């Protein structure tokens, strides 16, 4: 059931990203060049909704429906890696005009070019896990 729940949320996430044009490189690019407000309107309204929703869960002392544990999270202090990683990520994001969620949705849509982006993404993640010792060579 937990996996099905994650699958359902992922499905809505992927469909919404696609429907909003986040899988269209031109929409991303026009947003980043400030030619079109869409990207920032989309991102900020998502953020505000998530903020309000999570606050509500906290205030209501909600328990997770499928696990029974109290809903909780921890704040993370900024470190060098957050800046360094985001510099690399931001560069790749602007070149490919897609980030990990939309890349998965593009693959689903059958966008030919996304196979190349996804291959690079898998290699990048693998390289990190390999260096961190999470996976073997």
């Amino acid at each position, binding site marked *: 059931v937990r996996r099905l729940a994650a*699958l359902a949320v992922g499905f809505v996430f992927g469909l919404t990203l696609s429907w*909003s044009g986040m899988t*269209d*490189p031109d929409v991303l690019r026009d947003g980043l060049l400030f030619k079109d407000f869409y990207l920032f309107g989309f991102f900020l309204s998502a953020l505000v909704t998530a903020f309000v929703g999570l606050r509500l869960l906290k205030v209501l002392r909600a328990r997770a429906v499928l696990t029974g544990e109290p809903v909780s999270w921890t704040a993370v202090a900024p470190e060098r890696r957050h800046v360094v990683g985001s510099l690399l990520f931001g560069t*790749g994001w602007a*070149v490919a005009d897609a980030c990990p969620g939309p890349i998965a949705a593009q693959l689903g849509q059958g966008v030919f*070019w996304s196979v190349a982006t996804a291959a690079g993404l898998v290699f990048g*993640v693998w390289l990190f896990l390999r260096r961190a010792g999470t996976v073997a060579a």
Partner: protein
Amino acid sequence: VHQQLAWYVGGPVLGLCVVALRWLLNERLGATGAWSNAVEKLSSPGVRLDTRGWLLIGLLLGGIVFGIFGSGLDGYGWLTETFTGGARWVVVPVLVVAGALIGYGAKVAGGCTSGNGLSGNAVLSPASLVATATFFGTAIAVSFAIEALT
């Protein structure tokens, strides 16, 4: 794009996905973690797909359904406009390198646009605020640089 959802509809639905995953499973929604789980599974046979991996399958399915009902892409943005004719193949290595930067960078930073940008900022995690300011700033600068060069 023919059937683009209004941003004030799509954005809140996306935000509700973050809330739903927290409320159902007490988990942070992040696409990089989803990919990471799949890579762990492929690299070590003992690892099972957990909820993160299933989130990735959901993302793919969402794309498939849109691919059936929605409009497809014509080319791929600035890349296919810049590298035309015999130079078209250049797009592939450029995307592979960009993808590797995205994957490696997001893992180092502990999240991407969804994990840090939405889930992390929504709980006002300082690391996520720093990461988001950095990657948005970088992406805007790189986009303007590409615009100037092409």
